[in-house]
């Protein structure tokens, strides 16, 4: 059989045309299973795994009451991160875009969340607190503009409180009912009454923590704890784990972009980094078809270590070479 066409690049020989050796795949798997099992058992026994307890609403209230009050005021004013987020929670913002594509907005408001509701809904469920009932009635009677003005004024006062102490804030009619509302919210949180209040909302089986997490994320305490643990976004946090535990080293490139310009100062960083990583992942998947990239192994011959026995045998006299091209496809 003759080769009639000269390929642009010489074809890879058929692996079935080579001399063979015995190779016990089943035994190899069994040994591999034993090795990985023992290795995992030893590592688990020696290093264990981290389990930092969740931040509860009452834990947050005990650790940073001013933060709870400031967050409550911010939700009422509509100035928190969640209140100004955009899709999927509300229409308050256009959200992020990349290459002119407003992907966040196109996703739609599929999980509508009222930021005011994060504070007001649990409060409305409270009974036996006449001051709170009055404050709620007062709040409902105000126009939205008045509500925003009162809540913003109080939020500013909390932010400027001497030593962050709520007691240092002088009462003012500008605050309207907001101090009572925020105070009642703090009391509710401290008592444990806020646990599950936002995830069950009157049903029995809750479980979806969307609203609770949005509230917690609107405060500073969660992030303060995370940054103290070196998990912050500009601390390569995506790669890290609490304490001295190994994290996710394979996320190094994803988090790298957030550390450098233009992404580190971009309002669209999330969408931009996602698109960039998508492109790089596709490139990795398509390496076999990308000229240049697929030739790197030829230019940097690490493979000479892998196949050094074979190259040595082939140089010595062909015993390791494949049977010639002409035979390898015809006899099957």
């Amino acid at each position, binding site marked *: 059989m003759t080769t009639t066409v000269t*390929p*642009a*690049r010489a*074809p*890879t*020989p*058929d*692996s*079935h*045309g*080579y*001399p*063979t*050796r*015995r*190779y016990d795949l089943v035994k190899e798997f069994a040994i591999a299973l034993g090795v990985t099992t023992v290795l995992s058992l030893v590592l688990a026994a020696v290093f264990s795994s981290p389990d*930092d307890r969740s931040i509860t609403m009452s834990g947050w209230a005990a650790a940073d009451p001013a933060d709870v009050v400031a967050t409550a005021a911010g939700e009422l004013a509509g100035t928190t991160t969640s209140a100004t987020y955009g899709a999927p929670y509300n229409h308050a913002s256009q959200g992020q875009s990349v290459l002119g594509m407003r992907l966040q907005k196109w996703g739609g408001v599929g999980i509508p969340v009222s930021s005011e509701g994060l504070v007001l809904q649990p409060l409305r469920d409270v009974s036996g607190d006449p001051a709170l009932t009055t404050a709620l009635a007062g709040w409902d009677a105000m126009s939205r503009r008045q509500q925003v003005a009162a809540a913003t004024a109080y939020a500013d006062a909390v932010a400027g409180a001497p030593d962050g102490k709520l007691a240092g804030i002088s009462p003012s009619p500008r605050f309207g009912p907001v101090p009572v509302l925020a105070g009642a919210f703090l009391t509710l949180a401290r008592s444990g009454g806020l646990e599950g209040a936002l995830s069950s909302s009157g049903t029995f089986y809750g479980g979806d923590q969307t609203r609770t997490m949005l509230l917690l994320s609107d405060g500073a305490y969660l992030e*303060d*704890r995370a940054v*103290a*643990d*070196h998990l912050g976004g500009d*601390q*390569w946090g995506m*790669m*890290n*784990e*609490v*304490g*001295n*535990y*190994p*994290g996710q*080293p394979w996320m190094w490139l994803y988090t790298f972009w957030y*550390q*450098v310009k233009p992404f580190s100062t971009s309002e669209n960083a999330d969408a931009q980094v996602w698109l960039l990583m998508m492109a790089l992942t596709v490139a990795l998947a398509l390496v*076999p*078809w990308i000229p240049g990239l*697929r030739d790197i192994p030829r230019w940097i011959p*690490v493979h000479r*270590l*892998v196949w050094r*026995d074979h190259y040595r045998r082939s140089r010595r006299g062909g*015993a390791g070479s*494949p*049977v010639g*091209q002409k035979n*390898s*496809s015809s*006899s*099957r």
Partner: protein
Amino acid sequence: MDNVFAAGRYLSWGVVSISVANVVIVLVMLVVFALALLLPFPSDRDRTPAAGGGPAPADEGREP
């Protein structure tokens, strides 16, 4: 703030910051990779010339 929540040990050069734990893992991987390439693999005396073993799809052709 409580010491219970203290961060682990980190190494920093400029914009790069990596935990000691992660560095150890990556270094171990690099060493293992190098060893895998360098350590001799048990050879088998029972080598036969190319015999194949039944029908096989042809792998040759245009790259890849």
